[in-house]
């Protein structure tokens, strides 16, 4: 029983980690919190519903379509909500936050109109396939989700640490002006970051659809807020922190549903934010700065 719950928790946690990575990449490079990330994720999930249920195409097509749609949304987010604010004098540091809140509200209600409120079933061919080892039941979907998340995380880590573009991204995250002086096309890197983060959100959307078999317009908000909780837990802009934080939250939530009161599941993330901000504001994996928070 406990082992089964742990497996559920790790599955959930690996999805959370992917969502949180999208937040952390954008925060690392731009220093802003992308409140619209949850809604972009939700759009990815809806594209999955459209492709698999309405069109009846296979699941890999859903991944492809979700990546394309969310990447376009990410580009538009950067172009219309973030770029106009950048480099403008006298703009408060809260402006990008408010602007992305605008995008999130816009997208959430757009999806209400496009897809309707309520839950949409997410079909996939192998949803019911499972096998048992001893007394433990494992669904194939869980393994698929876990493998995809791990591959994605490893690919991202490799890309960030070894490739030229990845290094440019880290340089930009370190210091935008210096990177720019040293010949990094920071504007391109910023666009690339937002697009990539959004595409990861799209992938996470499909994974959630596979895991829960249902998609609704409100899930963007709750997932987005959890993603925020995770990056605060793991340390802002910290890639490893986002992965670990995602797993911790996934496990904690599954365990509270199994052994506690399921109604309070959604409160854990926020209680965690408040506690962690008070005890260790730099996050579990973050480094302490002498300046205090920006």
């Amino acid at each position: 029983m406990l082992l089964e719950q742990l497996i559920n928790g790790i599955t959930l946690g690996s999805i959370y980690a992917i969502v949180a990575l999208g937040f952390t990449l954008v925060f690392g490079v731009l220093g802003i919190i992308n409140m619209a990330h949850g809604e972009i994720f939700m759009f990815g999930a809806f594209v999955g519903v459209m492709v698999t249920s309405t069109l009846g195409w296979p699941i890999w097509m859903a991944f492809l379509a979700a990546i394309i749609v969310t990447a376009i949304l990410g580009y538009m987010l950067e172009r219309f909500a973030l770029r106009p604010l950048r480099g403008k004098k006298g703009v408060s540091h809260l402006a990008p936050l408010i602007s992305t809140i605008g995008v999130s509200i816009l997208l959430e209600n757009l999806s209400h109109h496009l897809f309707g409120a309520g839950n949409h079933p997410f079909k996939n061919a192998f949803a019911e396939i499972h096998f048992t080892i001893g007394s433990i039941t494992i669904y194939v979907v869980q393994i698929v989700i876990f493998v995809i998340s791990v591959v994605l995380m490893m690919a991202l880590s490799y890309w960030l640490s070894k490739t030229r573009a990845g290094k440019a991204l880290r340089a930009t995250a370190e210091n935008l002006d210096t990177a720019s002086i040293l010949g990094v096309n920071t504007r391109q890197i910023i666009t690339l970051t937002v697009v990539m983060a959004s595409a990861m959100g799209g992938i996470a959307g499909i994974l959630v659809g596979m895991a829960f078999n249902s998609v609704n317009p409100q899930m963007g908000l709750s997932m987005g807020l959890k993603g925020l909780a995770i990056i605060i837990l793991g340390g802002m802009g910290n890639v490893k922190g986002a992965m670990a934080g995602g797993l911790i939250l996934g496990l904690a939530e599954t365990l509270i549903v199994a052994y506690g009161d399921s109604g309070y599941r959604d409160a854990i993330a926020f209680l965690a934010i408040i506690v962690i901000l008070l005890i260790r504001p730099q996050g579990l994996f973050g480094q302490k700065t002498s300046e205090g928070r920006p």
Partner: protein
Amino acid sequence: MLGDFLNPYYLQVASFIMINIILGLSIYVTLSSGQLSLGNAGFMGIGAYTSALLTINYDMPIVVSVIAGAIVAGLVGILIGIPSLRLTGVYLAIATLGFGEVIRVFMINWESLTKGAVGLSGIPQIGRELLKVSRDAGFNPLDIGLKNNQYVYLLVLIILVIINILLIWFLVRQNKSRVGRAFAAIKMDEKAAEAMGVNITYYKVLSFVQGAVISGFAGALFAHVMGYISPADFSYHRAVEILIFAVFGGSEVIWGSIFGATFMTLMPEVLRFISEYRYMIYGAILILMMAFRPQGIIDVPLLQKLQLSKRRGKHGSKN
């Protein structure tokens, strides 16, 4: 007769405008010391539930319970405010947003007290209670040509207008006082303000708690005007709506939030077809405002221009 002019619907919309202005003021106060709190919907919920439960379960008079609602919201504000103010900028925004969500989750799950997602109904309404009182005193609204519901809504509106005038007067006065100047200094530059001897922690907590008290107060009034509340009334959408009041109207001057709250409440009522797309329009407004006029519609130069033209107008009429 007077009764022919008073449409209960208009009176009710006007009451909502008044409540929303109070909410707009609540976010203005925290913004005036440079902090963005997204927890005002949560404080509003605390105020509303406290006041509603006190009147339903303990038969307290509405005046007492509304004040109690504001005080409880303020106490929670102190509890949240003191530790949260180690955080600045976006961190504070997220922590307060998280706080709002925690409050909502508790309101949904603490069913024995809050009746869960269904919400509380049968909350005594200010207007109806006053109608009862005036009936007992031997006064019948029909004597001055008013139907009962007209009388009720009119009374509520008058009370809310008086509350608003007092509140705005207080905040305008405060802006010109030591406290207001300290807020402005902290907003400009925290470190410089600290170096000048401003006790920034004290003033930041003060502005945060003022915001909490005002939104709790608005929530309590909301409960007793509506007569029905549910956790959905105090969700993330409410927090964003409150934020819009200040961002659209103008977050630098008090008239900004007042204008924003009035305009944003009237818009969906006047343009019915907009109501369905309301939140989409809210989203677009936030994006456009940040890109083109981050300080909001009403800012200091605009006010000065208005004052100048008014003065010129007076001058002209004298000649």
